[in-house]
């Protein structure tokens, strides 16, 4: 089973990597990179490194890619590279797609994902318990709870600091 998944994901990874290199439109390239990063995340999952897989999705495919896309959009304007104005279609699609997303969230929340035992293919703590979500979570929320909390305060300070420096004086 996992062999089949691996080959499917590997082919997808190679294809998306090729797409990233070969497409001329930088936005398309960035989207191919998202697919590629997602494939790598699945491979981590196959190896039992659940935490790494989640971090890969949240940090790389999520945060860093958003940054990429923003940078591309800010630095390379011009309609000839992004094609004809896509906003009209997007506006029409926004409402049904949003509704679909809500339904999906509701379905997931009601399903057994949050209550049932972990998926048999993915054993928690596979690699001697090192990369498993349980062990990382235990470290983070028990042994290293104080550093974890202080880090959140540190991020709060950074947020307030950015506001203080960037805010324009009214009047």
């Amino acid at each position: 089973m996992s062999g089949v998944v691996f080959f499917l994901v590997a082919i997808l990874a190679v294809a998306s990597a090729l797409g990233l290199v070969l497409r001329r439109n930088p936005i398309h390239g960035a989207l191919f990179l998202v697919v590629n990063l997602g494939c790598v995340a699945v491979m981590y999952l196959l190896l039992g490194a659940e935490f790494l897989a989640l971090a890969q999705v949240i940090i790389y495919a999520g945060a860093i890619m958003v940054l990429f896309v923003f940078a591309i959009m800010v630095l390379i304007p011009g309609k000839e590279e992004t094609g004809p104005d896509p906003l009209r279609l997007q506006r029409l699609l926004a409402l049904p797609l949003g509704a679909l997303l809500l339904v999906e969230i509701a379905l997931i929340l009601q399903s057994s994902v949050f209550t049932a035992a972990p998926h048999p293919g993915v054993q928690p703590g596979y690699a001697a318990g090192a990369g498993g979500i349980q062990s990382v979570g235990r470290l983070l929320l028990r042994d290293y709870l104080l550093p974890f909390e202080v880090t959140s305060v540190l991020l709060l300070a950074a947020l307030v600091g950015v506001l203080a420096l960037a805010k324009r004086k009214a009047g």
Partner: protein
Amino acid sequence: MSAALVPLAPLLLVAATAGLLIVLDLLPPREGKGHLGVVALAGVVAALAGALTLWGREGRAFGGMLLLDNFAVFLDVVICYAAALVLLLSMDYLRRNGMESGEYYILVLLATLGMMLMAQAADLIVIFLALELMSLSLYVLAGLFRGRLTSAESSMKYFLLGAFATGFFVYGIALIYGATGTTALDRIAAASGGLQRDPLLLIGFGLLLVGFGFKISSVPFHMWVPDVYEGAPTSVTALIATGSKAAGFAALLRVLFSTFKVAQPDWALLLWVVAVLTMTLGNVIAIAQSNLKRMLAYSSIAHVGYMLVGVVAGGALGAGGVLFYLLMYTFTTVGAFGAILLLERGRQEAVELDDYAGLAARHPLLALTLALFLLSLVGMPPTAGFAGKFYVFGAAIRSGYIWLAVIAVLNSAVAAYYYLRVVVYMYMREAEGVPTRPAPSFAGRLALGVALWGVFQLGLMPAPVLDLAQAAVAPLLR
């Protein structure tokens, strides 16, 4: 549950007040944030009172990463005094400069939280995070006067050099972890007994000292001090000079005396050299300064040298003397910066030496107050400065560091020149140009009053506080 939170009480009070301020900042009135300063002050004073009631109690929290002992309580009190006085000074100062904002008070509280965490941390990771919390808040505060180029320069330099020092610090932690397999201070102490000459541990320890040296601004990690002190808003300068130094010394003393006790002969020798260099360089360069904030910056470097004399001397007298010195230095320095902050010429702050010519004739009370703070920095009896120097230098002599004490006393004599020069300007010169005048600020005067009380309380009756300071270092030395 509630018993487990007791060691955290002062920290929680400050953190909760910061959270409260974030909410209050969003509520009306939009113009004028003076009430936020009052709330922040109330939070810090509550933390100060909370810390005082915890005297004599011992406790640990978060699996031993955070601890409460008399040492932590003493430094919490020093830091809370610094923060409270700075908040008092800030209120009118910000309004006069048109920079009043809720973020200022939030960041002062978060910086204070970081400082107090440093005093209570028992794990290198927590020390590191607390250091960053304090530093990050102070970087922003230093650059808060956005319209002024010097303020931006101050913030930028502080940030770049501070980030560099952080790199050293983290690398040191990593090497120590590599050598001992732990970041908990007591377990490092236990492991380092068998690893006395382990190069990994020694290099890690050295890198840690570099990071601390930057935060307490000892030579050769002092380069940032004059520009940052000069450019930052004066109230922030006072906080950097007192609170962040107290926090740096808190973590440094804990690491030196309780964790690396086995290496004491080694680090004492190293710090002997650093202490001499720090006080000599600070004092010699301060002579040439005509800007009062810059002069006080170099003087603060020199005072770090005096405090390091106490660290080298060691024992209850030396380490306790350092704590006493930190408390007296906090009152004196906040007072001196506060007097500068209250005086303005036209719309500008009066920071040049010439601005102080003839001040005594026109504003005798402010001139007298500033003169008393400067005399305390010189170390004249009966001010607190004399008691502080007496204890620290006395500890050095008792531990056999005669030459160190001689150099320190000679340095104090040099320092008298540039402090007394300001007094001479105030009392014996004629004023020129636009007259300087003190800003009408009740909170500012209150802050000066409290600082003056501290200077004389510690100067006239130093023994009870010294006893407390020696009791405070007892947990480190056993």
